[in-house]
């Protein structure tokens, strides 16, 4: 028997104590805490998901959730979500996105040896000019991979009831569904909105695109407030890195009474 335990008031009981308490109440129960059903997230994205060392119940990508990546950096942020799970041994499936930039994904750190690219089941035709059973294809993939990346076009062209069934299946299986683009009218658990602030490195006729400052906004059901985080996506190496706020650093230093030493320049 598996009993899911919703997170109680943090601080009142440690997770271990809570687990022990419940185990004594329900004999033979194997306890799975909500935070144990997580997929890892990229360390740079961790603050967004509320993962920090002092959190008693850290939150990550909860298995079974549907995540929608929207905004002008939707594809990059969706690929950034793939990085940590694929590196830690999970498989990822990319469905109906023939235009995904594989080189960008590789630079971000997606483990390509555990990533499969599946052609659009809506566009495929077998020799009898019949459309393959999309539901069967999706459910087979949900059974097989932990992270399933779907194109918005695919999601919106499928019947809503079918997509809800796929979502239920993902919940049972414990994977996550990532939709690139706005999935309306399908409702999702988490929305990751990525807005481009600026591109750096290119001038008028000189330079080249070097890095992009992106504001990531995470919002969703059962979340008290939207979290926001500024990142370089991609940075000069094509990877994901945090934006270090130079001025903030100095402000903190000033408050602490530390004199920032002057440095001779020029």
């Amino acid at each position, binding site marked *: 028997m598996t009993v899911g335990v919703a997170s109680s008031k943090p601080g009142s009981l440690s997770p271990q104590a809570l687990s022990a308490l419940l185990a004594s109440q329900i004999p033979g129960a194997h306890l799975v805490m909500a935070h144990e059903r997580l997929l890892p997230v990229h360390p740079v994205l961790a603050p967004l998901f509320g993962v920090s060392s002092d959190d008693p119940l850290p939150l990550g990508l909860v298995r079974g959730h549907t995540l929608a990546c929207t*905004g*002008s*950096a939707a*594809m*990059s942020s969706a690929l950034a979500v793939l990085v940590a799970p694929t590196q830690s*041994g*999970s*498989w990822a*499936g990319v469905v109906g996105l*023939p*235009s*995904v*930039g*594989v*080189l*960008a994904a*590789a*630079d971000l750190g997606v483990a*390509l*040896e*555990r*990533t*499969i*690219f*599946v*052609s659009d*089941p809506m566009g*495929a035709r*077998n*020799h*009898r000019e019949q459309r*393959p*059973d999309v539901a*069967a*294809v999706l459910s*087979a*993939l949900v*059974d*097989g*991979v*932990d992270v399933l990346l779907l194109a918005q076009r695919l999601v919106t062209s499928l019947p809503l009831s079918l997509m809800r069934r796929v979502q239920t299946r993902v919940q049972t299986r414990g994977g996550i569904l990532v939709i690139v683009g706005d999935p309306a009218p399908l409702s999702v658990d988490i929305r990751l909105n990525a*807005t*481009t*602030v*600026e*591109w750096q490195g*290119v*001038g*008028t*006729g000189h*330079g*080249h*695109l070097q*890095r*992009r400052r992106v504001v990531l906004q995470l919002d969703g059901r059962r979340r008290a407030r939207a979290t926001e985080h500024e990142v370089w996506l*991609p*940075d*000069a*190496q*094509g990877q994901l890195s945090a934006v270090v706020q130079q001025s903030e650093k100095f402000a903190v230093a000033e408050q602490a009474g530390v004199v920032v030493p002057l440095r001779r320049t020029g």
Partner: protein
Amino acid sequence: MSSPQQPPRCAVLHSPAWPLIAAIVHNPQIYAPSQPLAVFDAQRVSCCSPAAWGEGVRLGQRRRQAQGACPHVVIVPHDPERDARLFEPIVRSVGTLVPLIDVATPGSLLLATRGPSRYVGGDDALAIRLIALATTGVNTLSESLDIEAVLSAGGGMGVGIADGRIAATLAARSAAHRGTPIVVPGGASATAEFLAPYAVKVLVSVAGCPPQLIDLLERLGLRQLGDIAALSPTHLVDRFGSIGLVLHRLASGTDDTPPATVPPPVDLSITRVFDDPILQLDMLVFAAKSLTDELGTYFHERGQICTRMRIEADSEHGETSHRVWYRSQGMHSSMMLDRVRWQLDGWINGADPPSAGITMLRITPTEIRSDAGTQEGFWGGRSQADETAARAITRVIGFLGPRGVTVASWNGGRDPRQVYDMIPVADLGSTAAAGEQLLLRPQDDSSADPNLWPGSLPAPAPAVVFHEALSVAVIDQRGHSVSVSGRGLVSAPPATLTLKGANHEVVAWAGPWPIEERWWDERSRRVARFQLVVQVPDGQRAYLVEVFAGNWWLTAEYA
């Protein structure tokens, strides 16, 4: 039977030059009386006729040396398949007397004599009977040839009966040379006495000992099997390790490899024939459930589990689907049923469905082991996730066809579209279990040096690469289309990008980066690439555009 290790008494029927006989039967033109013949395998003589031997052709010689010794030698190609096929009538003929026969190599067969000897009245009678049966078998091979003469050209056939495989094989070899059967009396001492004069070299061909070991034995002065048998097994183990004990056993005739006289494995295949052909998947799976349940119960009762099975389905029009399924941790009945469903689902609803209903379904377990539970890999190795992914891939390929599932493989190139090749998983291996093949794929070599491709785009790479470039317009301040001269100069700074009918203001741009590829053939391409950053209502967007023959194309977006 002096000791429990005393091996069972065996009879061996051996034809030393069977490849030659098979070749003559296969192609009678090469045969003439006293014509020297030799079979070459890997450029060395593997078998030669007595006539060739008389002219100086020796086993292991190179082709040149053999032709030097005997210029008119006829060279016969090595073809083990032909040898095995033509040996079959002899096996069948002997099979009329003895049902359980162990065919070691084409030209040599082994049987346990206990029953047959008593039936025909002793070992000598059995030996004569075997020769007669083999001759009957050989005579059916060809009508036009004088088989007796052919047989003698190939060194004849010999029967040896002795305790154990080694002694019987050596006896049969000698018998082939001598022309009469050799029966070695039973018992350990008689066997050892028979083996003693043979050179240790015979262990290479008879028992598969490594030639280096034999060479070492000869240099140590142990030239005959009797020399080894005379030594104490303890000393041999001291000097050679466990192989020393094996050597002693072989030399004294107590090898413990029993002839394969165990009954053939129980046929576990289970078949259901449908009187009314069925095309509905649900009905087929329901019918298959009783089969898998039956198999599951059978294995469960014996504490066994099936790790590999073959599922075959025939349609009314003769189309078939068969596939072998493997799961290293074994399959219970529900897992077997899953595989039946996957295979039939992929076939019936797949790219090449049967044109009529299914009339027969058969499941054959081909690999079984005792069910001792499983242990997942601890450090690396294949994980549960890999296994489930492999199965999912196989299933999806069944739905979408072989090109439906692809993986990325580093290819290199200047164009972001070319840097990674998308390879269908089904192409990674020829077997049906494409998912399994994927796991065997060498890890992706992403460490390939980007400097190999001068002129490729600097990092970061675009996250969206359009495989069919979109036609766009890039316009300067005065409303003219921007062009790039032959010297790679831009006519005016781009000011507006028109994409799908909408105009976007260009706030920053870089380029042109001209690329001239394959100027030597008709696939030559001369393009200039630009990076454009445009202002859109919700921020900035960056695009990669290229101008080719005066037209602008959007090839990628830094999305």
